């Protein structure tokens, strides 16, 4: 009596033993902290440039609504403050490490 339903189990023989598998692929390197902070600084700089551009357009009379300009300036200010706070935390952590007794 042939049991066809489990006939496919013979294909298991062709599976290579685990040890023969190649070493797992090296994990993709996470972007370094320097890259990250450079990216964030770049974004803050872009917001500042946007608000500066808004101000220029306001001065030349090309802006219809004043509140958009002010809101963009507020957003730029907030993102800059966030950047400054990140810098403060990092500096605190660094100084904490430097004070550590070895």
């Amino acid at each position, binding site marked *: 009596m042939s049991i066809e339903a489990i006939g496919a189990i013979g294909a298991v023989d062709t599976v290579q033993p685990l040890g023969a598998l190649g070493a797992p692929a090296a994990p993709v390197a996470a972007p370094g902290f320097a890259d990250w902070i450079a990216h964030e600084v770049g974004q803050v700089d872009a917001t500042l440039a946007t608000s500066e551009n808004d101000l220029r357009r306001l001065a030349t009379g090309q802006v219809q*609504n004043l*509140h*958009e300009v002010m*809101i963009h300036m*507020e*957003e730029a200010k*907030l993102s800059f*403050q*966030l950047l400054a*706070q990140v810098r*403060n*935390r990092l500096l605190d952590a660094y100084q904490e490490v430097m004070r550590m007794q070895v």
Partner: protein
Amino acid sequence: MSYQAAFQISATGMAVEKLRLDLTAANLANMNQAAPTAAAAYQPLRLVSQARPLAFAQQFSLAGGGAEVKAVVPQAVAPRLVYEPGHPYADAKGMVAYPGVDHTAEMLNVNLALRSYEANLAAFTAARTMAARTLEIGGNQ
């Protein structure tokens, strides 16, 4: 919801109220412009605003989408007829057609737009203060 989204919601409300004030100012400016015929008289403009329909990505968040202008509608109100026989636009009966602008209602509209703008500004300021306070977490008091 990000703080920039909160700012944008307030910004849409402020834009709507700004336009409401602009339209009211236009109505007031044209209040005393006589017209050659009654049909040609200036029709006061009214702002129709609505809640901004949510974008697809916003459907899954709890935040609203702000307000937007739906239409600016001229109101077909009857012109105000004033007896001025000497006026160049006077008709056979000496009546001159002036726009049917309701002065009291327009002044109320001015106040409404101003207060609504201030309300949007208060909401914006609250969101900004919230964000600024958040940045103080863990800081040196």
